[in-house]
């Protein structure tokens, strides 16, 4: 009787096995890539804001300290977003009638808050405390990057749990002298490998990896 299959089907069968394996691997690989990509993480994606506020200008050009606006960073869990009056303290004088700043003035007039788009947004079951990190010598730029080079704010880190845990397991790699915390341009010295552990001991930094450190 006639052959049902062409002889090529033998090789086809063999190839298909390899192909299947590759396909599965490919899917997994793609999944990981997408998850690490900025589509999911929003890393280096500048968000549109009601006012195109430039950290670059205010930090680098004007040299304003972080704490001038983010007042509660040393005392509270949240660093604090400045009230409109803080903006107006300068902008009632300079750029007093710049088109760009109309929303700010409007807010100040009407008493209606500006609505900024959150850039560094942790999941709501994560409880992060700025003040303790600052107190223990973790600098702003370690997590927020070179804000002084950002015309519009964007994330430089994924804020994934693994990113947090990496530092929590070994703070020595990222700790810096307390007086350098707000130095946005801080560069880690060559001897971080000695400096780090020393500071960790000096500041009594604990490597907290209990779940309840962040989740409650």
């Amino acid at each position, binding site marked *: 009787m006639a052959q049902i*299959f062409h002889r090529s*089907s033998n090789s086809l069968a063999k190839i298909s096995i390899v192909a299947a394996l590759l396909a599965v691997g490919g899917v997994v690989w793609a999944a990981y890539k997408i998850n690490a990509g900025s589509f999911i993480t929003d890393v280096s994606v500048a968000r549109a804001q009601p006012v195109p506020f430039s950290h670059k200008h205010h930090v680098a050009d004007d040299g304003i300290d972080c704490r001038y606006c983010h007042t509660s960073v040393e005392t509270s869990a949240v660093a604090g977003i400045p009230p409109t009056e803080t903006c107006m303290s300068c902008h009632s004088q300079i750029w007093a009638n710049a088109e760009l700043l109309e929303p700010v003035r409007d807010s100040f007039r009407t008493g209606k808050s500006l609505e900024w788009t959150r850039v560094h947004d942790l999941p709501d079951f994560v409880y992060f405390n700025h003040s303790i990190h600052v107190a223990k010598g973790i600098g702003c730029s370690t997590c927020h990057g070179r804000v002084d080079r950002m015309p519009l704010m964007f994330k430089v880190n994924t804020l994934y749990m693994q990113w947090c*845990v990496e530092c929590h397991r070994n703070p020595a790699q990222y700790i810096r002298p307390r007086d350098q915390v707000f130095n946005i341009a801080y560069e880690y010295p060559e001897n971080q490998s000695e400096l780090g552990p020393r500071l960790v001991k000096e500041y009594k930094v604990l490597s907290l990896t209990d779940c309840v450190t962040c989740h409650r």
Partner: protein
Amino acid sequence: MKTEEPEPASVATLDPGPEKIIGPGHNFGSVTDEIAGVVFRPFTKTPRQLFIGFAFAFLLVNLFLVAVTWLFIRGVSVWGIMIPVAWGFAIVNFVWWIGIGHAGTLISAILLLLKQDWRTSINRFAESMTLFAVACAGMFPILHLGRPWLAYWLLPYPNTMWMWPQPRSPLVWDVFAVSTYATVSLLFWFTGLIPDFATMRDKAGNSTARRIFGTLAMGWRGSAKHWTRYQKAYLLLAGLSTPLVISVHSVVSFDFAVAIVPGWHTTIFPPYFVAGAIYSGFAMVLTLAIPVRRWYHLEDLITMRHIECMSKVMLGTGLIVAYGYGMEAFMSWYSGNEYERYAFLNRMWLGGYWWTYWLLILCNILIPQALWSRKVRMHIPTVFVISLVVNVGMWLERFVIVVTSLSRDFVPSSWGMYYPTVWDWSTYFGTIGLFLSLMFLFIRGLPAISIFEMREVVHHTESTHDHAA
């Protein structure tokens, strides 16, 4: 290889009685024709019972779909579970199905290694049953999760949380045990089918059937080389799956044995769960084999010998289970632990579920004792009923273990009763429907009895005839 049309009438389909494992006058051809005939029979010639059975089963499948949809919308709250009884039907059914699955592997693997020739005509059947049972069982651990969409967190895979499953938890062991078991069973089943696929390919009437069976046969030509490799592979798989028969249900039993709940925390669980599994497994094989054998007139292939052997296995494993119950009772007293003691009293009469315990004793221990008598073993209707009874009994056993134990554990203030809801029941019956419809499809679409192995049987019997002559 014979290719001309079979004439079914050529061989008498008579039960040869308890000695023989195959009817008289069978030759390679007739065996092949009879089994393949079941599949190639024109659609309209399918036995009516099969249609009815499938229709019923399929109805249950739909019930299952409804139940699961509602479950996913509302959450596990649709079931009767609560605190303290946080595990209900879902886990009961899971253990029950896994247990049923065991017969397949046992028959195919262990009996094969033990050279029990009577296994041949039922092993295919049992293996498929295993597959479908495991499929049903495998669903429950996921369905019963509070957040089923996160079930994949039980798998060890690198993730952005830097989290791994917790290796001390028996549930993680389950994941591996069950998935391994499912995989090996599938391989075993498929490997066993390859030569028959080839046969079907060659006997198939139309080209589509030929192509389908051809693809499945993966180019099997039945050459000596094929056969030698085939035998190796088959034995290898048999060797692989033998330990699984023991391991899987032992691991499942750890879910309970590892916990501290009085009534769970027992060292005898692994052996007696395995025994129980085989017990229920064989019961289920009988429950299915007896009607099918009747509808398709396979009395000459699934003979009284098979029925009797399986009854004996049931009797044996049943006694082991009985011993298990006895030990539980003894230990609860012997341990001198107030909570163990109370848990058992609760099981027997203090709690609200006392009747389930006595019902299970009746189903699993008392009634099956009838199988001691050969007359009973030879009387098919009775065997069928007993097999059903045992199925029920084994389900009750899991209910008593899971629910009754949880309903009253340590702190009296937190005791409570669990009442299954309509959704509990529909999920349970739903899976039964799924299982049956898969079985029916299998019987209709694939050789339910291993053709090539039957041929071997024929070969053996013939050779013995020759010596006689």
